[in-house]
């Protein structure tokens, strides 16, 4: 049956119970005066059982406790019809209404899974059903109406039924005796279950303990009243006691409902656990979360310390986790060869394998997440480090090329130039003017070559950066710029080569951009150190509107800065100039 069909059927049953309950209770007033409190208590018992059954049937469709509880509730209401003034109704109600208690017993025995599996439990269930069935047959025969349309208040009917009741009394006592015995057996089973359970499992058994006490208590009271007290001493059961018993039954129905649905609450706690395990918490916190989620205060978590090849508990002490067995249930997270965590819990939780495996899955997920995160972090660290190394290697290479140019070609050209000067002197004042002119042309050519190589070398790597530091290099940049560039250099020490080179590159790129695109009349360059970071601000008074995504210059800046783990901020609103703020981490070299 689909969920929506089930809802319709359950809704219909609920509506029927809503109407049937008051109608049944109303029957009580047909033959006697009843107080409103008693009527209210009567309807409450039936309704609470039916409501509990409906909710269980809705939330736990596979659990037979739902339909059983609904049936029990209706059996309760059927009892009210014994007071009907229609003979046949009263007769049928009298025959059937005794089923309330045996059905209630079945609910207790089937709690919480809806199945009766243990042999003793089955024997008790069969006993209840057999006794009640026998009694039903006996009553049905003994009380059979003379005619279905008999008037129940007619003298003939009353006489006949009174006689039949009296004749049945010995059998009725046997029936009460048997059911009382069965209910004592049931109480014993329930108490044994409660006593042997511990922790989470014990609290789950509490509703049936209560229910068992109410059921057995009712039977024992009836038995005592019916069998042991002298017939002459029989008093009608006081209304107050009836109401109290009814309230107890309502309580039992609610307790049963909560007990069966506790899986829902447990699922909620598992969901909480999953949320809380976003990232594997420290062991004590993990243990507390698991204890909470599984309702097992005895639960322990042990972590495998791979480096030490041992387990430690939540307090950090090295321990040997218990073995899986009768005393403790043990669960390993990770593989048998490479355990990560071991969870030891109350063996009673084995009754609820779904709950434990859900919690274990949550922990497994957290462990796996932790491992993946660590992997990603390690990879990211490796990539970041290698990117920084690439930039550094590139800087080193450029520095080397600049030095080679300087030490090689440049020196040779310098020597050549000086030789030409020497030659000019050797020729003396009376030399051939054509030769002198030729010599001076060669000298000028050599000077131009020297200038070219200087320019080339500066493009590869500015020697001033290595020789004089970032401040001087920025000053040199400013001097060569075609518009006023004001350098405010607040650095008081040299910085690592890659930091200086990156800052210089960024400043040069920003100046180039500002000069080309901003239409600025003045550019400010400021450097300072704060919190082990080199800060570089380049701001202009141009038209603004520069875009980070626009132009390879800014992309190049971002790449260079990011390679050293630095940050770039660009502020460039239309008409308000452009301001580039760069921060580069530079722990003391």
């Amino acid at each position, binding site marked *: 049956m689909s969920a929506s069909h089930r809802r319709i059927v359950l809704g219909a049953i609920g509506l029927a119970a809503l109407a049937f309950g008051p109608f049944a209770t109303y029957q009580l007033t047909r033959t006697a005066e009843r107080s409103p409190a008693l009527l209210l208590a009567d309807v409450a018992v039936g309704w609470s059982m039916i409501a509990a059954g409906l909710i269980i049937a809705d939330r736990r469709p596979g659990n037979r406790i739902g339909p059983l509880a609904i049936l029990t509730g209706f059996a309760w209401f059927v009892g009210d019809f014994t007071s009907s003034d229609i003979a046949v109704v009263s007769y049928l109600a009298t025959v059937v209404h005794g089923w309330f208690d045996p059905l209630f017993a079945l609910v207790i025995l089937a709690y919480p899974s809806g199945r009766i599996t243990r042999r003793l439990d089955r024997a008790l269930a069969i006993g209840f059903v057999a006794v009640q069935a026998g009694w039903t047959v006996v009553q049905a025969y003994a009380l059979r109406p003379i005619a279905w349309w008999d008037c129940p208040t007619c003298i003939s009917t009353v006489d006949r039924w009174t006689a039949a009741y009296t004749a049945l009394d010995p059998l009725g006592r046997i029936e009460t005796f048997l059911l009382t015995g069965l209910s004592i057996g049931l109480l014993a089973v329930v108490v044994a279950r409660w006593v042997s359970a511990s922790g989470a499992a014990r609290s789950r058994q509490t509703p049936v303990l209560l229910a068992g006490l109410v059921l057995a208590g009712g039977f024992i009271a009836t038995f005592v009243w019916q069998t042991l007290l002298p017939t002459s001493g029989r008093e009608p059961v006081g209304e107050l006691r009836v109401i109290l018993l009814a309230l107890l039954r309502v309580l039992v129905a609610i307790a049963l409902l909560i007990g069966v649905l506790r899986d829902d609450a447990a699922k909620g706690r598992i969901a909480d656990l999953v949320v809380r395990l976003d990232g594997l918490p420290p062991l004590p916190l993990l243990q507390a979360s698991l204890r909470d989620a599984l309702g097992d205060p005895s639960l322990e978590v042990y972590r495998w310390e791979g480096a030490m090849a041992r387990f430690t508990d939540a307090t950090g002490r090295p321990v040997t986790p218990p073995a899986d067995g009768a005393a403790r249930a043990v669960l390993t997270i990770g593989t048998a060869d490479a355990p990560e965590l071991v969870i030891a819990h109350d063996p009673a939780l084995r009754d609820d394998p779904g709950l434990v495996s859900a919690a274990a899955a949550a922990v497994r997920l957290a462990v796996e997440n932790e491992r993946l995160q660590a992997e990603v972090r390690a990879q990211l660290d490796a990539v970041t480090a290698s990117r920084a190394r690439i930039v550094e290697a590139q800087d080193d290479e450029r520095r080397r090329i600049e030095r080679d140019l*300087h030490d090689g070609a440049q020196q040779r050209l310098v020597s050549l130039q000086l030789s030409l000067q020497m030659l000019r002197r*050797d020729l003396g004042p009376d030399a051939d003017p054509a030769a002198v002119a030729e010599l001076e042309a060669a000298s000028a050519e050599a*000077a131009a070559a020297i200038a070219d190589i200087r320019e080339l070398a500066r493009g590869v790597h500015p020697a001033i950066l290595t020789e004089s530091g970032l401040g001087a290099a920025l000053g040199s940049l400013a001097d060569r710029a075609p518009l006023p560039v004001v350098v405010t250099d607040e650095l008081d020490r040299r910085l690592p080569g890659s930091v200086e080179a990156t800052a210089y590159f960024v400043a040069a790129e920003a100046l180039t951009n500002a000069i080309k695109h901003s239409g600025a009349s003045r550019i400010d360059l400021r450097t300072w150190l704060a919190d082990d970071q080199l800060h570089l601000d380049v701001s202009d008074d141009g038209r603004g509107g520069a875009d980070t995504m626009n132009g390879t210059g800014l992309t190049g800046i971002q790449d260079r800065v990011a390679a050293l783990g630095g940050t770039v901020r660009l502020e460039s609103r239309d008409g308000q100039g452009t301001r580039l703020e760069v921060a580069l981490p530079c722990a003391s070299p």
Partner: protein
Amino acid sequence: MTRPTILVIDDHGGFRATARRLLEHDGWSVIGEAVDGETGLAAAASLAPDVVLLDIGLPDVDGFVVAERLATGADAPSIVLISSRDPETYRERVRTSPAVAFLSKHELDGTALRSLLGLTAS
């Protein structure tokens, strides 16, 4: 009139040889050559030249450091820094050093050097 004396400190042999010929031609007396900072300092102490032509990029000690140490003596020589690099490269360091002048190597000229130092021609 005696020729002014000069000590050339430069690690580049080719440059030293050319510079010697050029300076001698322009009326200087090159009384010594040194290939690095330490031997340069020792030579300056023993030879007491009027002028030291000092390369900035020396293999052992930075030329600026050598200049500082040369300048501490009572009878300190005039120091002229030379480099094949653009003077722009050294900016403040040249300005704050005890050197009296900076020359690009390829612009070396004994006559110009003498007038720069206020020494009369021979």
